[in-house]
């Protein structure tokens, strides 16, 4: 038996604000194998981001068991979780989150700052990642001079430059028009063929149709799990 890259068993997340409790995620069971290309669909507020954030170790589940590469995440220290974020996880946001005062290259280098890549290798690695996303000629630009699609490519380059096994994307095309979205999806397919595991949260049918496997969510629950 081979342990899946990610395994959630009965994972839940409850937000508490004063008297009010929100069960953003309830009893989620999910296994993601290495090389999977998975999309998570569902209406707004159904718990997609909550699930993705827990998977990315950006948030903590409040019930159930989550194993990342076989490790019980609930028992990891803060330092170990941070270490995994630096080395083993790539994350892409809908809002890009590029530093506006830094060049494209510097933004990509940023994600190697807290990891193990030696200083001397970082520029070359970043240039390689930019080449991979087709932005070699934009390395010296400030993000403000890039189009939305280009910005998201920079964000993807930043996420993959540390060579994590998995790329987690929260509505990566949510801010892009459909043509640009399609080119981003093509990039995902290329990355996937390099062996990267990709999880994409979306409420765009077109995006999820490109994935091999689609999870449907509703009111904090995983309601469907279909393979194309």
């Amino acid at each position, binding site marked *: 038996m081979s342990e899946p890259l990610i395994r959630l068993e009965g994972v839940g997340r409850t937000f508490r604000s004063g008297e009010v409790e929100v069960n953003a995620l309830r009893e989620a069971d999910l296994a993601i194998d290495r090389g999977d290309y998975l999309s998570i669909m569902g209406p707004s507020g159904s718990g997609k981001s909550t699930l993705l*954030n827990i998977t990315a170790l950006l948030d903590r589940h409040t019930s159930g068991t989550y194993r990342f590469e076989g490790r019980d995440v609930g028992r990891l220290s803060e330092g*170990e979780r941070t270490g995994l974020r630096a080395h083993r996880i790539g994350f892409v946001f809908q*809002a890009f*989150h590029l530093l506006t005062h830094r060049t494209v290259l510097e933004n990509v280098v940023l994600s190697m700052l*807290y990891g193990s890549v030696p200083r001397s290798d970082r520029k070359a690695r970043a240039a390689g990642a930019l080449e991979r996303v087709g932005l070699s000629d934009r390395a010296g630009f400030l993000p403000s001079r890039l189009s939305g699609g280009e910005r998201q490519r920079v964000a993807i380059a930043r996420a993959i430059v540390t060579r994590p096994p998995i790329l987690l994307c929260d509505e990566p095309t949510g801010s892009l028009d459909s043509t640009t979205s399609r080119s981003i999806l093509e990039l995902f397919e290329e990355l996937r063929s390099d062996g990267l595991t990709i999880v994409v949260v979306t409420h765009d049918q077109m995006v999820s149709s490109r994935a091999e496997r689609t999870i449907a969510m509703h009111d904090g629950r995983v309601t469907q799990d279909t393979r194309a």
Partner: protein
Amino acid sequence: MKRRARRARGKRSAAMSRIPRSRFRVLDLVTESLAGLFARPGRSLLTALGAVLGIAALVATLGVANTAGNQIVSTFDELSATSVVLTTDQGFSGANTRIALPWDSEQRLTRLNGVVAAGSMADVGLGNALVRSVPIIDPLGQTEFQIPMIAASPGIYPASRGKLTTGRWYDHGHSERADRVAVLGSAAAQRLNITRVDQQPVVFVGDVSFVVVGILAQVERQPELLSAIIVPEGTAREIYKLKSPSTVQIRTEVGAASLIAAQGPIAVAPDDPSTVRVQAPPEAEDLRAEVQENVNALFLILGGVSLLVGGIGIANVTLVSVLERVSEIGLRRALGAGRRHIAYQFLLESTGVGLFGGMVGTSLGVLTVVAVSAARTWTPVLNPAIPVAAPLLGAAVGLLAGLYPALRASLFEPVDSLRASAN
């Protein structure tokens, strides 16, 4: 306990590959902090302003106080700081308990290390005797004067820092032989109308004649010498039955005054030194310290307050900057920065602002000291530690000011901070 836990974890990770920890190399920390500061240079400069003013005020204060204190002390050193005067106690105890200063006080004191010169002296009671410079009384003009007589040992001349207009001072030989010689103080000489001594002028004190050997132009101590007719002690003993000197003027080396003030009474009255009254200058160091304390107290408070205000300014702007950069913090956390790494970055930024402000402030402060000194033609004096310590103080203020904002920054949860700016 802790070690065992770590070992247990070690075993677990042996079975499963160890999780590499995230790190933030010093060089990266420095570059990131500098990049943060240079991203908003105008704001960084404004932030530093508080530290600039505070440190400038402190450095200027210390420097001006240093300079002024030094100035006062150096003029003071020359005169008072080298003068010790011994007198017999003329207090309430009555004449019978009053001890006499010995005739050889001068010799005893000049043997002490640190004494440059010493001279004993005493007023000589002349009764009704008047002083005149001509043998015959001229009925047409006033030729007789009431002039005080002082008997003094030869050492009084150097000890009082006297200067002669003409002639010479008498010596121990004159005193031992009880020669009838005298030195006239400049005021006395003027009244007696004597300006030259080469013709060996004679003055009459009552019926006793004295040959004038010198005229005293000025003294820096014991100014009553200038209006007196000064005669050797031996002479006064023989003619006027003078009992003992009443005052000893000592001139010490710079810095030796307090030592001599302690040793002098023992030298002249070994049996009962406590009956000798001592007039000594305040310790030069004490005086310097006192002057500086007075100046410092006020301005240090001023500098301290401006530094405090500067620190609060840095803290405020750093906090604003933290709140503005919530999404950057979230991003860094998502990329693998630990809480510590976030805290270090903001701490180093505020420390950098403080250090920069401290350096500029130090330069301004030193310039102020130089300018003030130039305006008053003083020699600028600055403790050499200040130009080094002041920028560090600025850095320390920046560090302190950054503590709270850095703590706030480190406590953000990555999800919250990323969401906060998603729209």
